[in-house]
């Protein structure tokens, strides 16, 4: 047996768990730059709101109804996610983190599922204040079916135990609500008269294989209770890491672009070192606002392939700065000017730090640069971010300047559990 657990509107639920007055209030969490609603509390869903609605179009409709919106607070969400996963891992022998608010749990050998599952849900709610849902079934695909049915269940859980329960559960699920069935396949199935998961399970295998490739066949096997997808405990190391944001206002100012490039180069190096990885390919890109069709569009890009992987701030910052300078120079030479909206510094070809290639006869002084970076990390960890930085970053760190190219967050929430100075105040 395998279980999947997910959080009910995770980001919104985080806000509700930290601010008790928000419980029972419709809450939404907004995407970067406060664009769309990306997570909704059940109360917000009850008002008819849906994900991906642009917030500034619908705010006049929902705010009078009592809806409260927050800019996304990813650091806190991530911290809460870590807690949740550790709590869930207490109850089961093996666990696979699947996304920021979902995980698979190994339930094989558990005798008393019907008491354990509600216990897990209650305990998690007690320790974190966040409501989770659990679906249990013999295979991953069936567990996804179960958790879909748990949405309509007041216990927030659904268990599929035996063949007859599989049959009745599959009757209740439409093909488009199934895991690993995309919209195109769902349309194709509907055209062929296959509307429910139950009907898909009894479709001839050769037909499924022909029309939906091996992925569809696997889904069908799993619907019949044959395990094809196993639990993956160790995730692949990250394939690439990027940092970058939209500017508050589009800009063509050379100094501001260079400042931003050093700032994000620095951030990228920090992230790389946190993950203990080095980058062998760096890519720096700028983008104009592609939605503004009446302005000139430009997506310049500079890519560096490096012999030796790097993750020290000095080099990453230098490459980022060099790239932006060369873009600006090219624009000057061509006598053009663009209003850029977004900068991105992107690392790929990532290797673990300790597998980094050393080039023979190399004059590259990585040792001292790495040591310097590590010392800066240590100081900043103890004294707060940005206490020590490079002079060309200085302007960016100063708050009023930071404003210019940090994302718009009109509805901030405190970093309750990741910053000592923003802890909740009790009276």
């Amino acid at each position: 047996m395998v279980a999947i657990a997910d959080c009910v509107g995770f980001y919104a639920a985080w806000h509700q768990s930290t601010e008790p007055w928000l419980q029972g209030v419709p809450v939404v969490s907004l995407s970067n730059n406060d664009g769309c609603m990306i997570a909704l509390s059940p109360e917000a869903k009850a008002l008819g709101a849906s994900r991906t609605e642009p917030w500034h179009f619908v705010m006049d409709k929902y705010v009078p109804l009592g809806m409260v919106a927050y800019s996304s607070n990813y650091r806190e969400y991530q911290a809460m996610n870590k807690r949740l996963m550790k709590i869930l891992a207490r109850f089961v022998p093996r666990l696979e983190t699947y996304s920021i608010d979902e995980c698979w749990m190994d339930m094989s050998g558990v005798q008393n599922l019907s008491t354990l599952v509600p216990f897990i849900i209650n305990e998690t709610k007690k320790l974190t204040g966040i409501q989770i849902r659990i679906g249990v079934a013999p295979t991953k695909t069936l567990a996804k079916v179960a958790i879909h049915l748990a949405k309509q269940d007041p216990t927030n859980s659904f268990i599929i135990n035996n063949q007859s329960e599989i049959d009745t559960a599959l009757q209740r699920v439409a093909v488009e609500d199934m895991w690993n069935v995309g919209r195109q396949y769902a349309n194709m199935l509907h055209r062929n008269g296959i509307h429910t998961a139950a009907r898909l399970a009894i479709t001839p295998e050769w037909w499924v294989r022909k029309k939906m490739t091996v992925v569809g066949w696997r889904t069908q096997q799993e619907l019949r209770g044959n395990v094809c997808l196993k639990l993956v405990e160790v995730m692949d190391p990250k394939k690439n890491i990027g940092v970058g944001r939209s500017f508050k206002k589009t800009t063509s100012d050379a100094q501001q672009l260079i400042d931003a490039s050093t700032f994000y180069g620095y951030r990228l190096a920090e992230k790389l070192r946190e993950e203990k990885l080095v980058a062998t390919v760096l890519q720096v890109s700028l983008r104009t606002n592609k939605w503004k069709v009446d302005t000139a569009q430009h997506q310049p890009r500079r890519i560096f392939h490096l012999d030796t992987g790097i993750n020290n701030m000095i080099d990453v910052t230098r490459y980022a700065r060099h790239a932006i300078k060369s873009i600006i120079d090219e624009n000057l030479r061509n006598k053009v000017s663009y209003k850029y909206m977004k900068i991105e510094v992107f690392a790929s070809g990532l290797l673990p730090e300790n597998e980094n290639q050393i080039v023979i006869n190399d004059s590259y002084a990585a040792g001292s640069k790495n040591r310097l970076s590590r010392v800066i990390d240590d100081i900043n960890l103890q004294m707060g971010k940005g206490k020590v930085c490079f002079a060309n970053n200085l302007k960016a760190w100063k708050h009023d300047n930071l404003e210019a190219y940090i994302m718009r967050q009109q509805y901030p929430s405190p970093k309750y559990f990741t910053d000592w100075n923003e802890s909740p105040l009790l009276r």
Partner: protein
Amino acid sequence: MRRTLVDPKEFIQSGFTSPAEEYAVPDLRLDHLMIRDPEATYPARMQGKAMEKAGIAEGSYLLFDRGIDPKNGDIVYVWYDNEKLIRFYEKHGQKITLYAATPGYPSIQVESELKFIGVVTWANKCLCPRMFPLVKQW
């Protein structure tokens, strides 16, 4: 003289190994002392003087544990009457009373909905703030 920035662990050890090495145990760590359950413990901060007489000065850093069931006499973090309160907890039958430690703060008879959040387990006050720049002054 040139100073180098080297992690002591990077030095190569020569000579005899320390005879005390066999007895090595992990160093003392504050979180072992102060945190019962790391996933259930959260930070908070004291505002106001309501609990001063119980040893919680204004500006103290607090830890609360969501996993502990409150007993009479515990100091709890509750949500009541639109406020985040920290008070002594007393429950007799169905009747819950919240007491402040400092005289002059009225005790609260709970009449409407009370949201219990956690039991406050530790209060810490920095006694030498000039050396701890992370501690925000009150």
